[in-house]
């Protein structure tokens, strides 16, 4: 329902049902309902990329995903050795129930084009990708700790917590 429509409804009458319908257009549920039973991409706060079929959700954006795949992307710069190209690793995870607070973003995937970006990436085993990512994240946490300290000495607050690695 578009905004102009909801306005004309409120002009016409003001019974409880209309007010409910008017409110429904702008709820979390209305934003997510179009993605149900579609393949979606989900980014979690810990930096995980999940791809799966959205089966259900609620008003907090708690989600249930089926046939989920987790994928790790490693860019060429991140690996320090410039001989390594950009790579990815993936593994099957199955069913996921995700608590809403851990969601950063999600969107329906265009299944005709979903693999295009993988063609320029080198597929590596998931375990190797995971190990490399963990190392990068450890380094990042150390660097951010240092940054927090040095910024704090100048009265500035760094916005970083260990659980936010997206």
């Amino acid at each position, binding site marked *: 329902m578009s905004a102009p429509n909801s306005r004309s409804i409120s002009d016409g009458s003001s019974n409880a049902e209309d007010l409910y319908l008017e409110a429904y257009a702008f709820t979390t549920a209305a934003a997510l309902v179009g993605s149900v039973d579609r393949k979606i991409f989900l980014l979690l706060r810990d930096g995980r990329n999940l791809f799966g079929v959205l089966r259900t959700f609620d008003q907090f954006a708690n989600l249930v995903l089926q046939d989920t795949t987790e994928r790790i992307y490693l860019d060429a710069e991140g690996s320090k050795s410039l001989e390594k190209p950009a790579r990815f690793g993936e593994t099957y995870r199955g069913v996921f129930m995700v608590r809403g607070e851990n969601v950063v973003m999600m969107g329906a995937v265009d299944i005709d084009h979903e693999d295009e970006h993988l063609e320029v990436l080198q597929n590596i085993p998931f375990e190797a990708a995971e190990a490399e990512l963990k190392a990068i994240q450890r380094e990042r946490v150390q660097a951010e700790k240092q940054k927090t300290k040095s910024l704090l000495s100048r009265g*500035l*607050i760094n*916005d970083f917590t260990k659980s936010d690695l997206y």
Partner: protein
Amino acid sequence: MADVQPQQKQEEPLDLIRYQLDETVLVKLRGAREMKGKLQGYDSHCNMVLSDATEYIYAENQDKPQGKSTDMVFIRGDSVILISPVAE
């Protein structure tokens, strides 16, 4: 009418910001940032909208912040540390 009276008596911190509407303010933010701009709106979460704003980003090894200008920006309140008036 009953709702209006307590509003006049009760002064709360955010009432001070009301006088800054349409004036230039400096907002200090988490993430070593500041934003200077004309205050167009705010709410009780310190969500706000600034116009003709300049963002100042402080880097670890530089004294001077990097400036970045934007015509109209909404700032989410959970990043806000303080709001202060600026003499133009």
